[in-house]
């Protein structure tokens, strides 16, 4: 067959006058452990690019945490109904709200994978040399990056409201790690559910249904000590509680169980990644 078909666009597709030499050689494949960090980076870059094109989400998502701090936080600071161990309630609340808004973003980000499937983006990524687990890990960290940016916004709001936060860089690094791990878990949780229910309507419903219990069934708003026994049990298996505990310890300096918190979050993230990657191929069918 001839290379130049009889077509009414003579100038457009003549290969001779353009340089395509790079498209003749396949790129050298990364192997072994290098694959996962490379895919994580690729997914995070995409998220940052999207954020650069459209920052509205960043602003609209700042409204809710601001209202929580401003209205709920200020009110309960005044009425002193919740035992916080001597610190102002607003200070007590701020790490909880950081964790909450990061969790909302991560859960919603995981839900987006259904959109990506319906729009063909996911299918194409699944045909690239990216193991399922690397793709899920990449997505989990991309969710983490998004949450992290949100966390910075909430930290700034809290600081403006006069919350006494730490500015110790090491502690802030710890905060970033906690938010990243927590978001990795929550995004994988919703990707796992996506792999089970497979349609956006069902997933949206479930997404709505799990965020509130996760939030209220944690120590984000009140200490575990005021909870009834059954809620205490829920809080004990809720990764959000460990995230909040660590954030409070790092940012406000309340007594925390950092080793335990990091351990639980890391294990939860690893389990989430495993579960989501084993269900991911269901989304390809």
């Amino acid at each position, binding site marked *: *067959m001839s*290379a*130049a*078909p009889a*077509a*009414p*666009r003579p100038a*457009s*597709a*003549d*290969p001779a006058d*353009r*340089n*395509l*030499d*790079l*498209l*003749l*050689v*396949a*790129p*050298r*494949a*990364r192997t072994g452990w290098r694959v996962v960090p*490379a*895919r994580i*980076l*690729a997914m995070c*870059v*995409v998220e940052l*690019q*999207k954020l650069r*094109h*459209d920052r509205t989400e960043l602003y609209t998502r700042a409204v809710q945490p601001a209202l929580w701090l401003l209205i709920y936080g200020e009110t309960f600071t005044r009425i002193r109904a919740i035992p916080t161990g001597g610190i102002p309630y607003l200070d007590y609340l701020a790490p909880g709200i950081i964790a909450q808004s990061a969790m909302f973003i991560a859960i919603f980000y995981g839900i987006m994978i259904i959109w990506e499937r319906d*729009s*063909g*983006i996911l*299918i*194409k*990524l*699944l*045909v*690239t*040399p*990216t*193991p399922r687990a690397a793709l899920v890990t990449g997505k989990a960290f991309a969710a983490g990056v998004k949450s992290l940016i949100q966390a910075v916004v909430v930290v700034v709001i809290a600081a403006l409201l006069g919350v006494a936060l730490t500015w110790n860089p090491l502690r802030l690094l710890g905060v970033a790690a906690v938010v990243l791990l927590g978001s990795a878990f929550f995004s994988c949780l919703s990707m796992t559910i996506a792999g089970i229910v497979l349609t956006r309507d069902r997933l949206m419903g479930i997404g709505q249904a799990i965020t509130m219990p996760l939030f209220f069934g944690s120590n984000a708003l009140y200490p575990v000590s005021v909870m009834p026994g059954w809620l205490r049990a829920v809080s004990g298996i809720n990764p959000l509680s460990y995230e909040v505990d660590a954030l409070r310890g790092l940012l406000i300096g309340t007594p925390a169980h950092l080793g335990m918190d990091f351990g639980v979050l890391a294990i939860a993230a690893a389990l989430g990644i495993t579960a989501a990657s084993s269900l991911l*191929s269901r989304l*390809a*069918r």
Partner: protein
Amino acid sequence: MSDVEPMAEALVCRGLAYSFGETKAVDGLDLTVAAGEVFGLLGPNGAGKTTAIRCITTLLPVPAGMVRVFGHDPARERMAVRRLLGYVPQQLSADASLTGRENVALFARVFDVSRRERAERVAQALEAVDLTEAADRMAGTYSGGMIRRLELAQALVSAPRLLMLDEPTIGLDPIARTSVWDHINAVRAATGMTVLVTTHYMDEADQYCDHVGLMHRGRIRALGTPQELKSDLRERRGGTAAPTLEDVFRDVAGSGLDAQGGEFRDVRRTRRTASRVS
């Protein structure tokens, strides 16, 4: 035809079968695509073309021994097969919230293009499909034809040896269709890659494909060059009028909507595909 690769067969399917529950979507598909050619997989709605492509591209799991891509079995060497493939799915699949260039760069990244040559490679892929000028616009503002060309660039950036195009011209106007084919052919001439393409447009298959396979109910029912298929039918009919490839298609697939293929669901899916990316 351009230079034949050292390995003569780009793709071999032997008894390829895949079922969705009771539906035998692909049912004993035998197919050989020679390296360097453009092979057209034709067939009515629901024939199993997309399912076959998804088996070859490792999206659907198939047992070992059914498929070989340049000698590699997708069941055993999934990553090796994926590195050889460029894939454009039936539905429009660019990310509307990224620019054209970012869309292509993502695929350069996930195919391990080194940072040193990434920008240049992405630029060449965009140049190959004439999107250099529109490269920094959001893909959401592209027309259907531009999106198809962008997807082509995404597939090309990793220098695949087998390009799998599932209905690349669906929903496009005649000029955009010609343009997509021009670019496919130009790239093939420049790189010598093999192309497997599905289409509903018989005139396209006739004009652009070296070989075509007519698929119906999960199996190849007729195979050859467009010329061979047409003269075959002419001999069988014994008439003097020269049949078109469309006559061959009708002969194989039966006239009108078939009881099994072309269900409402299939047509609806095709329609949805034809609409723009959101």
